[in-house]
Every structure is written in structure tokens, then in C-alpha cells.
């Protein structure tokens, strides 16, 4: 099998590492601005896509298939993002006579539709968020509505069937408020969408994002893994993941795993995939959606189970049978945490910061795994996601994993662009994070409460040290000390800040 990796950055390198360990040759594709990206050098062969915008490069199905033809690649790994959940791409790959390293196109299609996926989950007996199931009848009396509300359970979201963007939506905590809220939502929805239909859905408060990784072969075996906790999100984007969850007990773990496996079996799933759930504070969980691909956060599962998910993706694609001990997959050895390091300025509203990576020395030593997609000399392009590396810490328990992550974050020497490292250092010291007390709204809430201060306090001797270093940078013969480059002036306008001492990193 010769594998074309239809992706870029750290995940392309991760997949190539898996291929190389199996002796499989690899083909990279690259956009113009990625010519110097590490994934191009890691591959045995590389084909230029001659474009930058995703639509003309990593999303361009015809170019990708042409690259496979040119190099004789007979399998395509989509990674995550880009075309990874595009059923049309999966089908085009198969139609071109190549193997698609992922589930069948039909399954991607099915699980990609919210309502179809929800129906499939319901059909497999997997809990979904309780609701009225369909629009409330127009002529319902207040008593009918209160009855429907009681059946769903409070708090309740009244949602417009045609809704979106929060319009025609009401949160109701008390049964007596329900009829009036429905009335308001109906009229808002009617004026916004020309459709006054509304339905009821239970509001899961303080919900945690819990997900179950699974592997499935082509012979009917499905293996679910110990859950991942992904509630630390910024604007619905995961930034820290860990496994196991600090709040999931063994019974809930088994119930989650069984649900995930049932759903995967129901839909004929193969290869690697993840089922996402919302967990409430009474240990009830509800199906959210399925990701029909490898996920960003797969390394934490690999670290606590010792199972190589990418290798299994490749093996399953070759028709091999899963021979993983299902008990091992559910029994985490220790605890693993991943921080997604983005080229963003945490002190300027997490603005993405494309630019040249001047220094890149990732941490090393016990329990640390780094999957990076950059090297010094590479310029983070403006065209894609700004993630530069994933930093994973593994230790005997959660507390030790946090301590280890703190140590590794402090070691991480990345220069040229600001990154989210200072925010992670702050978060690893946050008492609620340490206590495991958080839900999906936690990070946005605590960030909003910070009012823009620096994430890290300068060390006691910071000012003294800065005075000395500044003087020495001249006295020891600073190159370029006689002329500050214009490039510096240009760049600086973007990030103007009054604060002169700041945890920019």
C-alpha cells in the first residue's frame, strides 16, 4: 500500500510516521505556502497543488486524485479537517480505484446529517437530548403545552424549527413561563424565518463534552475506548483534552462505550471514528454527533492505552482484523492531557498570528509527546488553521499529568510568533481546572472575567534581569543593533499594545 496523505501540518506528519513504521511509502501534497512545511520533507514523494486557498489546494478533489495517479499511490488518508468528512471525496477516491482510509462514503454521508445521525442514534438506543420530537401543534392549549413541557423536563429550550443564530429561541426554567415563551418564540420565528413552528428540547446545563473513540474492522468487530474529556473549549473549539475524564466513573464509562459501539454497529461503521456526547451533572449522557475520521486529540488515547490508532487505521484498511483486548481499551493506564498550541496572541483576543517560526525547541523527557507541524524557518501561513503543535503529557494520575504539563510548557521554546502556551500555563494552575470543576462554558467564562491582564506574572527579578539582558545585548555585540528592520515596524502595527510587560511568549 502506498499512501497519499491528503492533508498538511502535524497530522500529515503523524500519519507519515505511522506509515513509515509499517514500511509503507508516502506521498505528500502541498500548497505553495507549504513548500517548506515539514510534511513535504517527511514524505517519500511530494506533489505541488499550485494554489494556496483551501478550495484550490487541500479541498481540490481532482488535483488530489491526479497526485495519486502521478505517484502511483493506491490509498488516501484524509487526516482531519479539509476533506476528511466529505462523502463525495471518499466516493471519488474509491471510484478512482484507490482505498479510502476511513469509513465508507455512505456512512460519512449518513452521520454527517444532524437529523439522520440523531435518528440513527435513537434507533440504536443511544440517548439523545429529550425533546418534543417535532413541532408543537398550532392550536395547542396552555395545558397541552405544559404537559408537553413536563414530558421533556426543565430547563427547556424552545427552538424554532427553521431557526439559527439564536433567533426564535427561549430558555425556560419554570413551567408557568412556558406558554408565554412559546408564544414569543413563535412570533419571533415567524417574522425572522416566515415559519412560526417551534419545538422543545431539554437544556443540558453545566454539560461536559465527553467523547468515545472507537475502531471498527471490516469483519464486524467494534472496539470502543475509554472516554476523552473535551470540555475545555474556546468558542466551541477544543483547546485542551484529557483522558480519562475526571468525572466519569467505571459504570458510566461502560455505558458510554456500549452506546458508542451499538451506534457504530448499527450504521456499519469501519475504521476509526469518535462519538461525541453531552454529559450532565447527574451522569446522564446524550448523543451529540459522530466524527467519521481520526481526531486531533487521538494521541491522549494512544498514550493511556498503548494502542496506535493510525496503525490500526492502516491495518483495518488492508482488511486486517482488530485483535485489541477490549478490556485494555477501556482501562486507562494513568492520565494524559493534550494542549493544542496555536499561533495566536492570547493577550490580544486570541488573534491568529501567522508568521515566521524563528525558534522551535519542543520539550522532551519523561511522559512528553510532541506532534508538531512546524520547524524553525517555516512561516505559519494565513490560509489555514493556526495550530503549530500538540503537546501531550502522560503520567500516573491527573495531578501528576498537570505538573508534568506545566513543566513541559515552561520548557517549550518557540519564538517568532506568539502562542497559546502562556494561557495553558495559567490554566494548568487554575483551581477549578485542577479540581476538574468545569463544563463546556468554563473557559469562555473565565477568560471573559480576566479583563485582558497578562496570563503570567513576571518573575520577581524580571525587571532587573531585563535591564541586564538589554544592556548585554548591546555590550556583547548585538547584530543589527544599529538598525531596526522595517519588517519589525510593519508587523508591530497589528499588535499594538499599551502593556509593556506582558506574557506574550
Amino acid at each position, binding site marked *: 500500500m502506498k499512501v497519499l496523505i491528503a492533508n498538511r501540518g502535524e497530522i500529515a506528519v503523524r500519519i507519515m510516521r505511522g506509515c513509515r513504521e509499517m514500511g509503507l511509502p508516502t506521498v505528500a501534497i502541498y500548497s505553495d505556502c507549504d513548500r517548506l512545511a515539514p510534511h513535504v520533507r517527511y514524505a517519500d514523494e511530494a506533489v505541488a497543488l499550485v494554489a494556496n486557498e483551501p478550495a484550490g489546494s487541500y479541498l481540490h478533489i481532482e488535483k488530489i486524485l491526479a497526485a495519486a495517479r502521478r505517484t502511483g499511490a493506491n490509498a488516501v488518508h484524509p487526516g482531519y479537517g479539509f476533506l476528511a468528512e466529505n462523502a463525495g471525496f471518499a466516493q471519488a477516491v474509491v471510484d478512482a480505484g484507490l482505498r479510502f482510509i476511513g469509513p465508507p462514503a455512505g456512512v460519512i454521508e449518513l452521520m454527517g446529517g444532524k437529523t439522520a445521525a440523531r435518528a440513527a442514534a435513537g434507533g440504536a438506543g443511544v440517548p439523545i437530548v429529550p425533546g418534543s420530537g417535532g413541532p408543537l401543534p398550532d392550536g395547542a392549549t396552555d395545558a397541552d403545552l405544559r404537559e408537553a413541557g413536563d414530558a421533556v423536563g426543565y430547563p427547556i429550550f424552545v427552538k424554532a424549527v427553521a431557526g439559527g443564530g439564536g433567533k426564535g429561541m427561549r430558555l425556560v426554567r419554570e413551567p408557568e413561563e412556558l406558554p408565554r415563551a412559546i408564544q414569543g418564540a413563535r412570533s419571533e420565528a415567524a417574522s425572522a424565518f416566515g415559519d412560526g413552528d417551534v419545538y422543545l428540547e431539554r437544556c443540558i446545563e453545566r454539560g461536559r463534552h465527553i467523547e468515545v473513540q472507537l475502531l471498527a474492522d471490516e469483519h464486524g468487530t467494534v472496539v470502543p475506548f475509554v472516554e476523552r474529556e473535551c470540555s475545555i473549549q474556546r468558542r466551541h*473549539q477544543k483547546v485542551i483534552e484529557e483522558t480519562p475524564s475526571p468525572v466519569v466513573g467505571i459504570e458510566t464509562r461502560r455505558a458510554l462505550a456500549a452506546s458508542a459501539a451499538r451506534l457504530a454497529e448499527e450504521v456499519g461503521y469501519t475504521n476509526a471514528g469518535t462519538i461525541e456526547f453531552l454529559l450532565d451533572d447527574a451522569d446522564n449522557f446524550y448523543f451529540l454527533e459522530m466524527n467519521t475520521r481520526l481526531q486531533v486529540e487521538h494521541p491522549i488515547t494512544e498514550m493511556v492505552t498503548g494502542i496506535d490508532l493510525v496503525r490500526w487505521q492502516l491495518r483495518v484498511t488492508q482488511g486486517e482484523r482488530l485483535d485489541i483486548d477490549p478490556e485494555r481499551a477501556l482501562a486507562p493506564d494513568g492520565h494524559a492531557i493534550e494542549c493544542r498550541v496555536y499561533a*495566536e496572541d492570547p493577550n490580544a*483576543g*486570541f*488573534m*491568529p498570528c*501567522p508568521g515566521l517560526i*524563528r*525558534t522551535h525547541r519542543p520539550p522532551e523527557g519523561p511522559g512528553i509527546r510532541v506532534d508538531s507541524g512546524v520547524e524553525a524557518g517555516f512561516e505559519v501561513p*494565513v490560509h*489555514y*488553521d*493556526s495550530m503549530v503543535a500538540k503537546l501531550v503529557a502522560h503520567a500516573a494520575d491527573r495531578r501528576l499529568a498537570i505538573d508534568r504539563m506545566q513543566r513541559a*510548557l515552561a520548557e517549550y521554546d518557540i*519564538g*517568532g510568533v506568539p502562542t497559546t502556551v*502562556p494561557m495553558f500555563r495559567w490554566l494548568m494552575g487554575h483551581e477549578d481546572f485542577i479540581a476538574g470543576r468545569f463544563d463546556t462554558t468554563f473557559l469562555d467564562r473565565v477568560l471573559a472575567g480576566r479583563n485582558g491582564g497578562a*496570563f*503570567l*506574572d*513576571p*518573575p520577581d*527579578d*524580571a*525587571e*532587573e*534581569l*531585563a*535591564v*541586564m*539582558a*538589554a*544592556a*548585554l*545585548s*548591546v*555590550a*556583547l555585540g*548585538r*547584530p*543589527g*543593533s544599529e538598525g*531596526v528592520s522595517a*519588517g*519589525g*515596524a510593519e*508587523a*508591530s*502595527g*497589528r*499588535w*499594538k*499594545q*499599551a502593556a*509593556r*510587560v*506582558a*506574557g*506574550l*511568549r
Partner: protein
Amino acid sequence: MRVEVEINGKVRDVTVERDRVRPARVRISWDGTTRDVDARIVERDRDGMLLSLVDVGTAASSRRVRCVAAGRNGLTELHLGDVVVEAVINGRRLAADSPGEAAAGASRLTAPMPGKVVRVLVAPGDQVEARQPLVVVEAMKMENELTAPKAGVVTEVPVTEGMSVESGRLLAAIE
């Protein structure tokens, strides 16, 4: 050698003397403070250097400082672990970028990278606070709130929702 170092708005007149026998050993003095330090350049690149400083006086502290000659504000950046301190050395600072500028006169908010305007939150004539979000631009798979560089009145918002913008394009002006 004398070097003028301005940090946090305070100017220090710093003297650096090298030991004649052991040139890596330096005595650094300013404002009545004196430190004896073994100072080494671990590596240099075109942007600056990595310094290793070991106090050889009463303390024995070992510190690693990355010096970037022209940092993001056109100043010298001193990276002390995760914390960055900015310094003006010998009065050198890019005039267009002096921190005072943001506080007075007209301020222009420009697009830091190519992207798409997804929300415009203010209109000409609006009174805004410093750091108040003005425009949301989607770029690099993220929605980015671009905030007011200073408090004032919005004089111009030459973009609309859905518009694609190039890097450097004016998004809003404040007076």
C-alpha cells in the same frame, strides 16, 4: 560601556564593564545596583541571541534570556521564560510605533490578515471604549474580534458583512 535602557517608561543609565582576564565576566551597574554576572551568548540568529546569565556575585541564579532585536512593537524584546519585557535601547524606537500614539489623534483599525468580515458591530458616530470589539473577521478558521485601539468616536467603517478583506485593509477609524 554605557547603555541607556528604558523599560516600563523608566530610563536607566547602565554601565557594563568586562573583566579583562575573564571576558565573559561582566559587572553591570545602574541606579546604585551592581551585579557580577557570567554572561554568554549560547546562540545567535539574525534576529537576536540567546543569553545565559549566571550570577557570580552573592547569588547564583541561572537565567536564560532570549533577546529579539526588533520585536513586534519595533522594540527590543527580552523573553524571560514565558514573560516578555520590552525595552528601548539607547533611545532607539520606531517613531511610528511609539506607544503614546495609540492614545492621541486618529486611530485606524486594519485587517491583520486576509479574511472575511462576518460582523460589523459599530457604525460611524458611535462612542466606543478602548478594547471594545468593532468588527469580527473570519480568518484561519477562527472568528476574530478586532477591538478599538483607543476610546473615541467611530468616524468611518468602510466594510460590510460578508466582504472579503486583504491584509492591511482599513476596517474602522476612530477619533
